[in-house]
């Protein structure tokens, strides 16, 4: 069985969908000859040509606008925003235009637009190239937000996103792209993972971990450590899509374990996991044996110093300590 990287899975999803449907095309900065800032689109220009692998000037608002306008008129664009930080430059187009159009125009107009972007830190790229901004988008009705944590999910979720008639914010994680450690078997054919369907990445009895994106991988690492060192059996739940959110899979896990820790890379204050915790409390309060724990990025811009960045983003050590505290094991 072949194994491929996260980046290769994303590229394969786009290639296969572009072969299936001539209305699917890519646009973004440096995606043609250069292959994208992270190399995701390497080789695609040769197969599909410059009309469909459309290099753009550094014009984020116009990139999203082109995506919206062409989606409204029958195409299925995939717009790449190089770093998720740069999404903020296109916020009007994303929030006031793309997200609103279908509802605001009475349901007839559709915006089948995928915005792919690279989020997250751990790369020493500092405050403007490392953020995790998903909560800005999950707050907006009309947007779907997808954050795959592994190659298999990345391919299936991207295919579903391309086929979806709504704007989808597809946030990839830089540390997952090329790391061979996260390579996985990914079917060669086209397959879909429905948006709004979470996944249990590790079954366990003692405590539920809800995590997104790269934090899923980090949580799995912590789960292995806790099992071997402390005999604690963690269940790791990955919602995969933040909106729509599969709350059922989270609630049923919480009902089973009675304890839950929610882990995200984004800043704590106003983070997406606040929503998850609120829904857990509303829907499964009686099943909880301990307070719900949130572990998130520190409330500061991502610092440049590797020592500081390590402290800012939830590390294996910080997650492990938080969980042991929660479980009363000091």
């Amino acid at each position, binding site marked *: 069985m072949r194994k491929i990287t996260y980046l290769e899975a994303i590229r394969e999803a786009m290639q296969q969908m572009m072969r299936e449907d001539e209305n699917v095309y890519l646009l973004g900065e440096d995606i043609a000859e250069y292959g994208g800032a992270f190399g995701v689109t390497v080789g695609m220009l040769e197969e599909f040509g410059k009309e469909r692998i459309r290099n753009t000037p550094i014009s984020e*608002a116009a990139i999203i606008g082109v995506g919206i306008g*062409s989606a409204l008129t029958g195409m299925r664009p995939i717009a790449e925003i190089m770093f998720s930080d740069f999404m903020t430059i296109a916020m009007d187009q994303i929030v006031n235009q793309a997200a609103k159009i279908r509802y605001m125009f009475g349901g007839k107009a559709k915006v089948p637009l995928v915005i792919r972007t690279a989020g997250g830190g751990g790369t020493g790229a500092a405050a403007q190239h490392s953020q995790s901004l998903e909560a800005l988008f999950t707050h907006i009705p009309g947007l779907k937000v997808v954050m795959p944590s592994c190659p298999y999910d990345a391919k299936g979720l991207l295919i579903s996103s391309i086929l979806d008639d709504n704007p989808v914010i597809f946030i990839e994680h830089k540390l997952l792209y090329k790391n061979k450690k996260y390579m996985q078997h990914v079917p060669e054919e086209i397959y879909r993972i429905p948006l709004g369907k979470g996944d249990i990445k590790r079954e366990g009895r003692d405590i539920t971990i809800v995590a997104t994106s790269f934090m899923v991988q980090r949580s799995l690492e912590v789960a292995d450590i806790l099992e071997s060192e402390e005999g604690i059996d963690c269940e790791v739940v990955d919602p995969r899509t933040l909106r729509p959110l599969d709350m059922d899979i989270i609630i049923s896990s919480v009902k089973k374990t009675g304890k839950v820790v929610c882990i995200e890379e984004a800043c704590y204050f106003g983070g997406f996991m606040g929503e998850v915790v609120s829904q857990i409390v509303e829907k499964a309060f009686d099943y909880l044996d301990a307070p719900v724990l949130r572990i998130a990025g520190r409330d500061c811009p991502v610092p440049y110093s590797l020592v500081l960045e390590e402290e800012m983003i939830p590390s294996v050590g910080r997650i492990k300590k938080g969980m042991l505290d929660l479980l009363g094991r000091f």
Partner: protein
Amino acid sequence: MKSLSKKENYDKMTVLNENLTKEIQVEMLKKIIEIRRFEERCIQLYQQAKIWGYLHPYIGEEAVAVGVCMAIGVKDYLVSTHRGHGHCIAKGADLGKMMAELFGKSTGYCKGRGGSMHIADTELGMLGANGIVGGGIPISVGAGFSCKMEGKGRVVVCFFGDGAANNGVFHESLNMASIYKLPVIYVCENNLYAISMCVKDSTACENIADRSLAYNMPGYTVDGSDVIEVYKIAKKAVEAARAGKGPSLIEAKTYRFYGHHPNDPAEYRGKKEVEYYKKEKDPILVLENRLLKEKVITRSDIEEIERDIQKRIDEAVKFAEESPEPELERFLEEIREA
């Protein structure tokens, strides 16, 4: 300051003996009057609180929408603004559905969810009015991209105001439309004021069309009160776009007779200035006088046009008043997840 835009093209255009039939000219007059009377009724209804929110009258600017829309076809796309009623009517929108939308009724273009600033009908090629100044300009580039990929000669008209021309997306979008040679006609409706700020104070160049030089596309300035002049320039730009020659920038010098909205007394404008435009640059008077002088039309023809339009507006208001409110149990349609 000398105008940098290609004014010579415009001057040549004006002496061209365009084949403008009587029928087209009368049709233009009908559309202009239709927009005027529709909006006058809207202002009345707004003052009676039958419609609410924000309403941005296009009165005084009608010749721009009509002149441009007469130069395009049903299948072409139109991207509009917050001052968009005129664009919709010129593109052929149904007065009843428009009025119902302003009344927030389920039979409106957007099922009562959009209101004045968001009227859209993709089937009619109306890709939406827009509540964000400049918000539609990037969208027009995307529609232009679709037209180009489709390869059937379809074009996009993108309206925006002098205020939007100073927003960053204007630059991003016109540059992008030009490098990709997209069939988009940019129409800046320069009504001299961005709410209260005069274009003299807000804009570093004399003519917004001068900026076309920087985007390597033809630029035209035209008297926006003269529908025939607007039509001629628009036709030229549309023909260039259909022929694959890329986008153009047309600046129509125009004037809104009302304030930014019905409750804006517009005291930032001098009385003399307003009187001048109402007397000399009223698109209805300009066209009526010409058609009367050339004996294309008689006073009684005009009266009949007015009567017919009043009747249709009455019907539109009746339709809106009698239409049901949106159903509460359906208001999350098209947004519900999963």
